[in-house]
Structure formats: C-alpha cells, structure tokens
C-alpha cells in the first residue's frame, strides 16, 4: 500500500484526498443549490448552511494540505499523453487549486464579514480575519459564480478521465482509484 506518489501511480494519501474532496465539492454544490430554496420554517433552514460552512472549512484545510502534498511528491508518468493533452491537464489540475481556494475564501467571507467566526460542527471555530460589513454581498456573488465555474471544470475533468479510460483504454483513471499497478 503505497503512501506517496511514484512514477507508476498515485499513493494512498493523494487518492484519499482526491475522492474525499471530489465528494465534498460536488456535495456542497448540491447542498448550496438546495439550501437557498428553503423556507424560513424548514427544519433544515439553519442546519443545511451549518453543514455547508463546516464541510467548506474542512475542505479548505484539506486543499492547503493537498497542495503541499502535491509539491512534495513526484507526479506519475504522463508520457502517454499528447502535448496538447499534457498542457490541458496541467491547466485544469493546477488551476483547481486557485479556483477552489477562491471559491472557499469567498464563502468564508460571506459568513465572517461581520467579524463572526465560523463554527465547524462544534469542534472548533475559524475566526474572521477582517471585519468589513458589506463585503458579504460581493463575496456572495463571487461565491455563486465560482461554484458554477467549479462544477463546469469538474464535469470537464471527469469527462476527460472517462475519455482516457474508456476510449484510450489508459490507466489514468485507475491510477487515481486503486493506485499504481500491482507489479
């Protein structure tokens, strides 16, 4: 059970973080879309945003961890890709970091513009870094736009992986699912 990434494939840490964050990001998108339709008297009116904020903050923490991990690990071999595919995958994969960071920070600013911290499931609080009442509105607009951009990139990313897996019959998707080949 490989922990670190090698030339042959992704280790356990990378794979775990990938799928946990994938479920988290897609899940929060769905939760975000749904929670803003709730009526004031829905029992989920308070709980759904609490979950959204809590998971969002955990994902932010994971994102930073994951970026550091990516920098500290070698990338598996991608010589099977055409130059265009290699460039495109670099843009999307590296691009996910600033995209997700901006998405999560804009969400953070919605809740903390009044100086209030974000409570994460009662385990700990993330304090506000700046107090700027009024900032929550443009932060909200950015957060909404970026959430759609993120999902679009996620769909693109997933579609590309299916293309490589089903059409090119490559190991690219398997590498992220079950790791390097067993040899």
């Amino acid at each position: 059970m490989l922990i670190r990434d090698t030339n042959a494939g992704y280790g356990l840490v990378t794979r775990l973080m990938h799928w946990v964050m994938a479920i988290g990001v897609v899940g929060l998108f769905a939760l975000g879309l749904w929670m803003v339709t709730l009526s004031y008297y829905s029992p989920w009116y308070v709980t759904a945003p609490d979950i959204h904020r809590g998971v969002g903050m955990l994902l932010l923490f994971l994102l930073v961890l994951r970026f550091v991990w990516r920098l500290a690990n070698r990338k598996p071999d991608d010589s099977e890709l055409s130059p265009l595919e290699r460039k495109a995958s670099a843009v999307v994969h590296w691009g996910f970091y600033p995209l997700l960071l901006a998405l999560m920070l804009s969400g953070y600013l919605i809740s903390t513009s009044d100086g209030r911290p974000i409570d994460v499931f009662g385990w700990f609080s993330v304090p506000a870094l700046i107090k700027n009442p009024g900032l929550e509105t443009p932060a909200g607009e950015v957060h909404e736009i970026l959430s759609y951009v993120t999902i679009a990139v996620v769909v693109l990313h997933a579609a590309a992986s299916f293309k490589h897996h089903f059409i090119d019959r490559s190991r690219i998707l398997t590498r992220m699912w079950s790791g390097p080949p067993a040899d």
Partner: protein
Amino acid sequence: MKLVPLSIAATLLAGAFALSSAATADSYMIDTDRSHAAVTFRIKHLGFSWLNGRFDDFSGTFTFDEKNPENSMVNVEIDTESVNTNHAERDKHLRGKDFLDVSKYPTATFKSTGVKINGDKATITGNLTLHGVTKTIVIEAEAVGGGKDPWGGYRQGFTGTTKIALKDFGINFDLGPASQVVDLTLDIEGIRK
C-alpha cells in the same frame, strides 16, 4: 399725494404677510454628514423577540414652517443596500431577491404630501416607494426640539414612526404570522440651509 384707500392698503399688507409666511417655511438638510439622523426598523422574530435593524445610508431634506407647521414637507432617499441588522449572512439575504432585491431597487423613497397637526404631534402623509411599489403611508411624528447650535447653525429635530406590511410592498418571503408588519422609525435632525 393721493391717500391709498384703506381696503387696498389692507390687501397689500395681507399679501405681504402671506408672502413672508411662505418665506418662513425654512429649508433644512438632514444631518447625515455627522449622522444625527437614523432610519431604523424592527420586526418580530418568530414572535419571540424584536429584531432590530437600520439603513446606514440615506439622505433627505425637509422644509419646516414654525409658524404654520402644516406647510411643511419632508423627502428622504434610502440606499437599500445599506441595510444593517448586524449579521453578514442575514444582511446578504435581506439584500437579495427574497426581500429588498437591492440590485433591482437600490433606492427607497418617502415624499410627504401633507402634514396635519394635532396638538404637539403631527401626522405626515406621503408616498413610500419600496421594492418598486409606491403606497401612501402615514407617519406619526413629533418635534423633539430646535434652535441655534453652538457652531453657527440652526437645527430642528423630529421623530416619526409608522408600520408597514411587507406584503403591501411585494415582499412575500414567509417569516411567519408574527412578522407580517415592520415598525419603521425616522429620527431626523436637519440643519437650516
């Protein structure tokens, strides 16, 4: 020299007084520069407590005729985006489509159409335009005080309250049966121009 008939002189004098009483309807600028005015509101939360809020940014003028107060008027323009209930997420929600829809309706206005004095109180009737809907409302007002200030100005101050039903202005988000009406208070101090 011919003497001016008494009746004509009387008419001229009455006209002069009428002109001067119209001229004593002084114009005031509401002192928002130093924030000696406030537009505040409160609405019940679930029927359990009063939720207080304000509009931080607004401007306005009024004319006040000390000798004939019913000859007064007031105009206020409120920047709806400046709504402030001391909670970022709630304020963001209030600015959105569920409530004030400030990107579509950035300004709320009140223009008085008439003032009726009863004793030391007044009833100000006027048009409130909020959320794109204009309705006649009545503000119960009283003068708080007025006079020279220590810095060369002359001021008058008033307080007024009114109740408005959110549904009357097209705001239909269901906050529950105890929260259909908002109490609005205008505290204004004006500096004579």
